[in-house]
């Protein structure tokens, strides 16, 4: 009775790699080491005079590099916010001015109406003498009927 374990051990014995394997590994290792050295030997950027946006910033002791895209996006957001604030302020101011103009127009209209009414009342009084009511046979009020019982002028709101 054969043992599968022994057969497997025999079949799965270690085998040597093709000749020159270690040299090929070492060649790749040397290539890797050269690449590392090249990367390490890259000269650092000379410090610029003044404020350079693209050089790493130091915020709270940490180096932070800022890309052109990020700066452009931040600038766009700030400009947009300022623009919206100005537009909003302009709109509020315009609405206030329109409201004041409408109020002035209304006061003027009331003043004119009041003057006309007073004029009409004066006329009516001069026709009827005592200002008594003149009624038609149907009981309708005529144009000579006074509009204001008290006979006083219409009080106008302060301008």
């Amino acid at each position, binding site marked *: *009775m*054969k*043992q*599968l*374990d022994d*057969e*497997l*051990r*025999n*079949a*799965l*014995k*270690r*085998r*040597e*790699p*093709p000749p020159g*394997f*270690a040299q*090929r*590994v*070492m060649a*790749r*290792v*040397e290539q*890797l*080491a050269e690449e590392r050295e090249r990367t390490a030997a890259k000269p650092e950027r000379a410090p610029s005079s003044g404020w350079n946006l693209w050089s790493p910033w130091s915020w709270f002791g940490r180096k932070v590099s800022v890309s052109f895209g990020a700066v452009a996006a931040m600038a766009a957001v700030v400009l947009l916010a300022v623009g919206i604030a100005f537009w909003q302020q302009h709109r509020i101011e315009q609405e206030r001015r329109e409201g004041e103009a409408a109020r002035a127009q209304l006061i003027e209209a009331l003043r004119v109406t009041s003057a006309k009414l007073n004029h009409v009342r004066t006329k009516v009084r001069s026709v009827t003498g005592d200002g008594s009511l003149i009624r038609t046979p149907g009981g309708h009020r005529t144009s000579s009927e006074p509009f204001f019982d008290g006979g006083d002028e219409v009080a106008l709101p302060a301008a």
Partner: protein
Amino acid sequence: MNHQTAETQDAVLGRAAAGDSAAFEEIVRAHQSMVFSVACHFLRDPGRAEEIAQEAFLRLYQNLDRIESQAHLVQWLRKVTWRCAIDELRRAGHGKETALDDAPDPVAPDPPGDLLLTDRLHKLVASLPPRARMMVILRYQEDLDLAEIAKTMDVPLNTVKSGLSRALGVLRQKLNRVLGDAEYETA
């Protein structure tokens, strides 16, 4: 490996970590057959196996400062070889896990005989799903116990126990089927 040898090898490891390329080459030569054999038995393709073995040693070169001892080095190399091999299998599109029972029998059976048995076993092992295949390779090529296999492959011990047991069952069954009258048992 006696104490003296281990001490010497640890010294070589230290020199390699300090940048001594001759020491690193010594490490490559000492472990090349282990790394190459694991990859070769797993992939059944010496060309791809050499690629995997080279990749494993390159990764070792890049991580030499993390290696603590000779034993750690050997275990690290086995683990990286397994990972590189399974990645290679996935890249090639053959890494799908299949059920052990669904693993195909080797094609074109040869007449039975001791001379052909090794080749027959290679083919049977190669027909196993990747994880079961690596368990068998680590068990019988590297003579690892179950706990070491579990550690190398990053799987639970019970997974190794059941996986290896099933893989051996399937291998025995298929070998008996192919060879006819011979009865194979595992220890």
